[in-house]
């Protein structure tokens, strides 16, 4: 449809222009319709446009496209590099997390070991101390018993003496020391 419109439009413009020009050429002499200038215009158009086309297609456009391509390459390259760097960073981060976990585990193990060591140490020390104390207690008990035996003996002697002298004073006759000692020893043994 638009082609039709353009066609009609251009034909009417052409008709209008020819009308205008055919009248005005005679009146004012429109420079555009001076046919004698056409050859020089066309010759210089061909020369200059051909020169421009050669220059553009051989020099300018390849140069621009080269620069644009280089830039695109550079951008792609940098993007690729960025991706690889990111991957590397991710790997490093993973390694770091792994190392951290390992170290933590190790630290935990060391703490546990030290803990058990300390507990063991304490237990043995405690046992040793207990043994020592027991030995000391036993020794003390022994010496107490010894002292008691000695004391008993002394008490028996003293009691014999006291009984001997008491009976002698009361009854006036001396009893056999051996008998009294025997009796007192018996009494003491009974009481004990």
């Amino acid at each position, binding site marked *: 449809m638009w082609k*039709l419109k353009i066609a009609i439009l251009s034909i009417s413009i052409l008709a209008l222009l020819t009308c205008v020009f055919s009248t005005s050429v005679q009146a004012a002499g429109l420079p555009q319709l001076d046919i004698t200038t056409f050859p*020089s215009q066309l010759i210089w*158009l061909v020369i200059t*446009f051909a020169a421009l086309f050669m220059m553009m297609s051989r020099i300018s456009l390849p*140069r621009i496209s080269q620069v644009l391509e*280089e*830039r695109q390459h550079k951008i792609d390259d940098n993007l690729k590099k960025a991706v690889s760097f990111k991957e590397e960073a991710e790997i490093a981060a993973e390694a770091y997390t792994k190392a951290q976990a390992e170290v933590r585990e190790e630290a935990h193990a060391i703490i546990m070991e030290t803990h058990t060591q300390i507990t063991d140490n304490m237990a043995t020390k405690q046992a040793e101390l207990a043994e020592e104390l027991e030995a000391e207690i036993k020794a003390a008990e022994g010496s107490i018993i010894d002292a008691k035996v000695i004391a008993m003996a002394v008490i028996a002697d003293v009691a014999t003496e006291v009984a001997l002298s008491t009976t002698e004073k009361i009854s006036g006759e001396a009893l056999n020391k051996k008998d009294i000692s025997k009796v007192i020893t018996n009494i003491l043994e009974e009481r004990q």
Partner: protein
Amino acid sequence: MANPLEQFTIKTLIPIPLGEVDASLTNSGLFMVLTVAAISLFLTIGMRQRLLVPGRWQSLAEISYEFIACMIRDNVGSEGRKYFPFVFSLFMFILFGNLIGLIPYAFTFTSHIAVTFAMAVVVFLGVTIIAIARHGLHFFTFFLPTGVPKVMAPVLVPIEILSYLSRPISLSIRLFANMMAGHTMMKVFAGFIIPLGILGGWAPLTVDVALTAFEFLVAFLQAYVFTVLTCLYLNDAIHLH
């Protein structure tokens, strides 16, 4: 008041008679040379350093490259890559020609039908040759749109052929008429500034300032339109609808 059409006069600068043909360097030819020089300078200086991170000029050069590359990719597809240097040269030639023409006292070679029609004919012939080379006789089915009843063919085919043949005409007249009209308007308004004096001259001056800005837009737009239509014609030639 000076004739507003006087600015379009072709003046011979260096006469070069080439047998029967007049190949003189005229103001038009000089500005074509200047345009080509400006484009080369722009792209050479812009891309001089080939920076990874472009500066201002390099950015401009790259933007113009990508602008046309994108236009071809969108309108023609990957098969259009071959024609990229031509389309790029065409766009830059028209754009710089239009823009340089806006400098006061400069000549606008795109305001001449001979130049624009020659470019349009080159595009038209090139596109037609590409189409016939690619599709052979099958190319002529282009004039009968698919899905149209056969009864309509006698009506539609002549219209399609006419619209196809009018392509170079509409293409060249659009550019030439736009440039000529814009420059004429500016000249007409400029011609009123001094006669209207210090009190009234401000009005046409303001209009001219606005028109100048508008003409910059037109300069770019017409270069763009010419190039986009070239791309669309190329697409038609390569894909046939």
